[in-house]
């Protein structure tokens, strides 16, 4: 447990961070205003050019001005909603040192202990081990980075670090359904987190983050708990995420990319076990699209069969049909010469 002296040191650092945050708002507002002023000056220039063009009857030049004005108005419309919230915010009072010490004291009582890293300027607490829907995710360290408090309106000035990581099978960075690369997806807690931090309610900030960690929202996790351990390929056993999993509608199992293919005829995904290869063109086919040749019973794709006969059998049939005709012709030729011989004999 930290003594009052240590809590005062932490409180002082937080106060400095909040001062930076207060200043950053004005700096950002000034930056946005500079952008807006520049856009308005460009609009003034275009207005002058437009006046000159119209008075001289240069309508092509006037049209170019219209295009530029249109683009500039788009930029102004984009800038205004960014400026207004910064300008609207009332001035935030920086909490007094004693109030921050009380906050840290409350935090210490709530979480048992606070870790203060003076060199890195961080304050951390550790949650109880977290289990969601029977999946053990372990305890998490919530680490507030005081140096980054001034970035509160653009990014999260804290990390959520898994101390006994049990990451999703498909992504090592996802240590909790709502934590990716140590960043928390705040969801419904976003506004409350920002309000708590900007008002110096440090204890509230940590308890809100803890409440998010203790809740599973199945609607939009990085990795759903149903797929936490991944999907196993039914054929080779490879663990894959849902995006790389292919469902075979014939055997109703999930397969990896290596163990699945698609039918070149109907384009349905199919596993290698439920697919077949056309004997002639060697394209992969699903069970529905493969057909047998009436003659040889081999499997072929619909485009390779002609009248339910494969190209090989078709060729054989044609050869067989050609053969008797040749024989007839030959026999006809033979018969004619014999007659001629007889006629010659009779003439003699």
């Amino acid at each position: 447990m930290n003594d009052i002296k240590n809590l005062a040191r932490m409180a002082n650092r937080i106060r400095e961070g909040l001062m930076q945050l207060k200043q950053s708002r004005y700096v950002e507002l000034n930056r946005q205003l500079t952008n807006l002023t520049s856009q308005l000056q460009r609009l003034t220039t275009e207005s002058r050019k437009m006046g000159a063009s119209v008075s001289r009857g240069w309508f092509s030049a006037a049209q170019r001005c219209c295009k530029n004005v249109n683009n500039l108005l788009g930029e102004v419309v984009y800038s205004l909603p960014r400026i207004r919230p910064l300008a609207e915010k009332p001035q935030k009072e920086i909490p007094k040192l004693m109030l921050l010490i009380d906050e840290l004291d409350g935090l210490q009582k709530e979480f048992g202990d606070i870790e203060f890293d003076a060199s890195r300027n961080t304050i951390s607490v550790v949650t109880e081990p977290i289990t969601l829907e029977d999946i053990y995710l372990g305890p998490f360290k919530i680490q507030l980075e005081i140096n980054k408090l001034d970035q509160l309106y653009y990014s999260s000035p804290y990390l959520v670090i898994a101390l006994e990581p049990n990451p999703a099978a498909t992504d090592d960075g996802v240590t909790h359904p709502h934590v990716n690369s140590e960043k928390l997806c705040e969801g419904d807690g976003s506004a409350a987190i920002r309000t708590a931090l900007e008002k110096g309610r440090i204890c509230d900030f940590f308890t809100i983050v803890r409440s998010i960690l203790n809740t599973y929202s199945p609607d939009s996790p990085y990795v759903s708990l149903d797929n936490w351990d991944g999907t196993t390929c039914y054929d080779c056993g490879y663990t894959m995420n849902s995006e790389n999993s292919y469902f075979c509608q014939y055997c109703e199992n999930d397969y990896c990319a290596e163990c699945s293919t698609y039918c070149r005829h109907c384009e349905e995904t199919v596993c290698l076990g439920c697919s077949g290869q056309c004997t002639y063109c060697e394209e992969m086919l699903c069970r529905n699209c493969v057909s047998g040749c009436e003659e040889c019973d081999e499997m072929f794709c619909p485009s390779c069969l002609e009248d339910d006969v494969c190209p090989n059998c078709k060729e054989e049939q044609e050869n067989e049909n050609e053969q008797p005709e040749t024989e007839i012709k030959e026999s006809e030729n033979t018969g004619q010469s014999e007659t001629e011989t007889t006629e010659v004999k009779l003439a003699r």
Partner: protein
Amino acid sequence: MRILYINNDGSGFADYVNSPEGTTVEQFFNEQMPGRKETDFLIRVNRQPIARDYILQEGDRVTVTPTKIEGALV
């Protein structure tokens, strides 16, 4: 009496509210959060856990934080 009420459900607003003398924490919660269950919230008075029959005093600071908050991509 004036109570500083901090509600971390939603936007996390903080404001002073007036409450009759002798109001317990439980009554205060039911008045501020009608239809909600106390068990779904972490209720602290002056940053300390308290019994539900604690009688609020002038200037007390009551914090209400949901125990479950849905995280999601924003």
